């Protein structure tokens, strides 16, 4: 607990993150490289979907991380809101654009995958629709940071929005699933039909870990950026006092 408390100090975090960053960079490059090699050269094409199945190596990690990042955002927002810890709000703010990026990757690669397999760019499938809504939630969250001029206010308002969104996400997901089962046509092929073959699974795991390392790297860079911004604000206040 004491350690956690120390970590929650932005300065300490900054120094620690400096040490982590090179390693996560290295891991991101090597894991993604390995995953891509295995996925593109070693793994055989799927007997049903053919070569298009290779899109899975970017689509699935992006899609899973899209919701994971939202969870990170919600948890750190809660921490910052309850314990009034600035680092929590920095992390949440830094995470949002990354989450939005993963979401848009998931949506677009999903569309590129859907065209050859389903014959259409977009279907109002439960999963696609939920991811689209998640994308809107990310955009809204990023927007909240921008419309408040006072950053303290913005941090609190954004935390509320993140928490409200996190509570609502399962409800939205549930309602969209419900809506989808009511309207589902016969032509849609279920994605999770046969279990994934291990030839596909292993590179997928590498890619997934690589994406996580990427997430950590970018997150660290963005959090450092936020900490510096905070320092800049402090100096600005100091200068305005001396005048």
């Amino acid at each position: 607990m004491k350690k956690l408390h120390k970590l929650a100090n932005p300065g300490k975090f900054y120094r620690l993150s400096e040490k982590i960053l090179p390693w996560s960079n290295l891991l991101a490059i090597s894991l993604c490289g390995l995953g891509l090699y295995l996925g593109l050269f070693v793994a055989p094409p799927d007997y049903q979907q053919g070569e298009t199945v290779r899109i899975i190596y970017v689509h699935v990690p992006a899609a899973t991380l899209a919701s994971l990042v939202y969870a990170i955002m919600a948890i750190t927002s809660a921490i910052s809101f309850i314990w009034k810890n600035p680092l929590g709000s920095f992390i949440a703010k830094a995470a949002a654009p990354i989450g939005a990026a993963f979401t848009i990757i998931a949506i677009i690669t999903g569309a590129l995958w859907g065209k050859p397999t389903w014959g259409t760019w977009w279907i109002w499938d439960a999963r696609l629709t939920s991811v689209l809504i998640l994308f809107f939630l990310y955009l809204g969250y990023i927007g909240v940071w921008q419309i408040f001029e006072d950053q303290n206010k913005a941090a609190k308002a954004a935390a509320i929005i993140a928490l409200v969104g996190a509570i609502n996400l399962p409800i939205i997901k549930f309602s969209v699933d419900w809506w989808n089962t009511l309207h589902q046509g016969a032509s849609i092929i279920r994605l999770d039909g046969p279990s994934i073959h291990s030839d596909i699974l292993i590179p997928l795991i590498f890619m997934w870990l690589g994406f996580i390392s990427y997430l950590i790297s970018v997150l660290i860079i963005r959090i450092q950026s936020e900490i510096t911004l905070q320092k800049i604000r402090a100096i600005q206040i100091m200068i305005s006092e001396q005048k």
Partner: protein
Amino acid sequence: MIDHENSIILENVSCDRGNRTVIKNLSLKISSGKSFTIKGQNGSGKSTFLRMLAGFQKSINGKILFKGKSIFSNQQEYQNKIFYLSENNPIKNTLSCYENLFFWAEIEGMENQLQTALEFQNLENYKNLPAKFLSMGQKRRLNLSRLAITQKKIWLLDEPINGLDKESVLKLCKVIEAHLANQGIVVIATHVDLNLETDTFYL
């Protein structure tokens, strides 16, 4: 020691708003039984000071203590003791003076004192007039009438006598003196002197 019980103490309080420090390293003591006046130019942070005392301004450095305890330790209880007169008049234009007062009285649970409140600032004649027909000074007086229907201990008054005539000011001073005699706390932000025995602090 008795004095310590009923006073607000600020220890090294600083307050930032946006990219500006409004209040810096302020340490002072506001005791009951004697009014406390804050003076300063426009934008010197008088209003922020009062909002801080009212517990609205949460992101501050330093300590604000009431009865030896931080005001944020039991905020709801502390804020229930606060009477705050802001620069704005919380008056609904479409409601009559009486209806406006009645709403405030209901919130305070003091409906039986309405007549005194109307008499306090000579507003009986405008009783049923919609508030939009009042002048600025009259609106201020209507807002000040809330003092007659409050039982709260700590009064925070932001520019209370803006646009007030002599007689109203006199009546206001009387009410404040009565409250102080009752061991109440009164903090006034103003740039005009009131005829009161007071501690003064310049921001």
